[in-house]
């Protein structure tokens, strides 16, 4: 059984991915723009999609644009930024009702694609550049978005771990950019950067749902005219760990946040990627995993204790919320469980259980349009084609030996602890 039917077509500088499925009552469009993470342009890149989605030539104010989206049966339009390894990816998403489920048979998808192309390729300009008022509003919102991280202690401690751990690597940069760079951004500088994005970025357009494929292809060929390009690729170098870096920070908080970062030395393109996923599942990915059982269930130290993998950068992140004075104890349990994994101290049952849950998770992911895009986009980021059935088979084929081998490639790099004011560990 084919799990996802993806058809990919190059239309000049853009790759159009269409996924035909009748599972949804809506059609989803996701435009992805990919470029290497770069300190010089980081903040402009973080600002750009928000400026683009503010208004268009045909709908020259945000209010008019949003009113038009309401008219299109509440089509959603939103943008976000992600780090995928050392790439900085802009996503612009639209989701729009499929008129088959409406009394009104207006061709909504074509309208949405037309709007998206206008927004991205033909933005509204003032004296040859973006509108000043828009830039100022969006700079203010971006500043707020950057600051918001500090108020969510879970996100904050995760961010701090990455900053400390990847100090000299682009990966340390934050997707939303830096407040200190914002002042320097002008309408002209942003417009220059925008032109570079349209000329150089890797551009992928996904359309998911039930639609006339020929019509979509025609609309895209007519509307999304961009030149061919040779997108910039990042060569990833794994870093060696010489000694564990321990960072303790004090703040006025009630709960301590313990984050531990490991280098896995394995990424999506590697053949032992599946073994790493199984490793992570047994170690901390799920509620049957060693971290959950040992940190939470056995010792009652935490409400959450989990690990996750950064597939394109080769990192494993452990996170937990604990009482301040349980720091040593929690760190030592997390380390012990890692040692247990390296020594092959896990059962066949843990193996089969974990494989079952991972496969379940993958299959569930592709039940949502967003999930389909995320699964497929891995292949674009890593420039490697891995079909989902291959992926599932790959998980099945992982042996205990493979997991132990993957475990032994993993090195603890940094321990970050956010603790209360004046609390001595």
């Amino acid at each position, binding site marked *: 059984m084919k799990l996802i039917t993806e058809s990919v077509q190059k239309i000049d500088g853009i790759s159009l991915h269409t996924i035909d499925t009748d599972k949804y009552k809506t059609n989803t469009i996701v435009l992805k723009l990919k470029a290497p993470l770069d300190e010089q342009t980081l903040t402009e890149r973080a600002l750009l999609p928000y400026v683009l989605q503010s208004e268009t030539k045909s709908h020259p104010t945000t209010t008019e644009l949003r009113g038009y989206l309401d008219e299109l049966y509440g089509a959603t339009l939103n943008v976000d930024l992600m780090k995928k390894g050392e790439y900085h990816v802009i996503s612009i998403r639209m989701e729009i009702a499929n008129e088959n489920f409406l009394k009104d048979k207006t061709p909504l998808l074509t309208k949405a694609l037309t709007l998206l192309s206008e927004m991205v390729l033909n933005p509204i300009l003032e004296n040859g550049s973006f509108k000043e008022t828009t830039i100022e509003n969006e700079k203010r919102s971006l500043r707020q978005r950057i600051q918001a991280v500090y108020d969510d202690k879970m996100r904050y401690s995760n961010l701090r771990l990455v900053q400390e751990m990847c100090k000299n690597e682009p990966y340390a940069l934050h997707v939303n950019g830096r407040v200190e760079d914002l002042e320097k951004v002008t309408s002209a500088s942003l417009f220059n950067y925008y032109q570079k994005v349209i000329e150089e970025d890797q551009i992928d357009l996904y359309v998911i749902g039930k639609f006339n494929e020929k019509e979509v292809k025609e609309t895209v060929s007519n509307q999304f005219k961009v030149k061919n390009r040779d997108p910039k690729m990042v060569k990833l170098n794994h870093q060696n760990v010489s000694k564990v870096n321990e960072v303790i920070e004090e703040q006025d908080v009630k709960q301590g946040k313990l984050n531990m970062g490991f280098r896995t030395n394995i990424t999506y393109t590697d053949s032992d990627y599946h073994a790493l996923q199984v490793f992570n599942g047994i170690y901390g990915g799920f509620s049957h995993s060693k971290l959950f059982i040992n940190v939470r269930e056995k010792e009652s130290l935490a409400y959450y204790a989990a690990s996750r993998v950064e597939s394109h950068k080769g990192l494993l992140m452990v996170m937990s919320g604990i009482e301040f004075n349980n720091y040593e104890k929690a760190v030592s349990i997390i380390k012990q469980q890692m040692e247990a994994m390296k020594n092959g101290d896990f059962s066949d049952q843990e193996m089969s259980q974990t494989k079952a*849950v991972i496969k379940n998770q993958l299959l569930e992911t592709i039940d949502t349009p967003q999930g389909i895009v995320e699964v497929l986009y891995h292949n674009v980021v890593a420039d490697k084609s891995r079909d989902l059935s291959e992926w599932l088979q790959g998980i099945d084929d992982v042996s205990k030996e493979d997991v132990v081998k993957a475990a032994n490639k993993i090195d603890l790099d940094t321990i970050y602890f956010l603790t209360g004011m004046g609390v001595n560990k």
Partner: protein
Amino acid sequence: MEKIQLEQLQEELFHEKLPNGLEVYILPKSGFNKTYATFTTKYGSIDNQFIPLGKNELVTVPDGIAHFLEHKLFEKEDKDVFQDFSKQGAAANAFTSFTRTAYLFSSTSNVQENLETLIDFVQSPYFTEKTVEKEKGIIGQEINMYDDNPDWRLYFGVIQNMFHNHPVKIDIAGTVESISKITKDLLYESYETFYHPSNMLLFIIGPVDPEGILYFIRTNQEKKEFSEQSEIQREFDPEPEEVAEKKQVLKMNVQSSKCLVGVKAKSPSRSGEALLKHELSLNLILDVLFGKSSKVYEELYNDGLIDETFSYDYTEESGFGFVILGGDTPNPDELSARIKETLLNVNNSQINNEQLERVKKKKIGAFLRSINSPEFIANQFTRYAFNDMNLFDVVPTLEKLTLEDIQNVANESFEEKYITECHVVPKK
């Protein structure tokens, strides 16, 4: 088994009420990999005063007990239920709200085994003093986690402002102090009272055969004995109409300020169609007034008072209801003043037919979008059913709402005495 055709949505819904009172709904979704099932009891954090099953006297139980019970049901004498689910390739979870406790799993294989695990673990409580004590540590950390979360504190702060007595103002997880009073006997007493099948609803959605699944559920339930259950006697202290506090400012370790305005519902005693109409009408007005295409939104945004975190929603059930609106803002006082001004000065000329049609379209599209999600359907269908409403009546009800309907609701809902505000501001 009753079969309900949802013509416009091109779906079929199956329903049966079992002899023990359990309501079962099955919505087959071919093409999906995942089956999602929720087993929900009409028992939430607000149910803190009730007459226990087989007794005559009203009891008041410690805050947070419904949520505590939710945690404890996963643990059995010889095992942890999470393990059973994961062996069968499923992901399990649970949540407690003001009015419900739901247990759920999702899986792409072994659906019948997982369903059996779900029903059986919820229907076989096992509590000991020792495991109850152990859980206090875990839930204590959960409470601390929320204590550090400014959005949660703000949300509860504004609800606390609104209510004098209604237990909706109590934090769902309780406090470290209140959960310290929970014992295994109290857990059993609550369990026996609220986990009777006649107080519960099972919803299954996914690529399933409804006949087969229903047969399986019937057989499972026939094997079990349940005591006769009469209507559960809950008690709520009388609640004055006006808000309890006009304003509260929380100083926290944050960089940005936040502001929520709450509007307490006047006489929230509706159910069924009346509730559905009222809830939709209020949400439509909020869309007209504060939606991204509204004049007010534009002004607030351009004046730098709101950003993308700005949101609004109306919710009502079981004797409480409220509008909550707001978000991050550099100036909470100014934002709340502007929101209040908008609410208190609504006049009928502001809400015209053109606007109504537009926000209706928006809501219809949003409904189609949300029913892509099995989780949404199962969770919301249950919430609607517990309030004698039908989720699939949303679109037809929306279509029928008139300008007059929503003008009337606007005129009666927004009064000074129902409005309160809560801010989170940086310490220093």
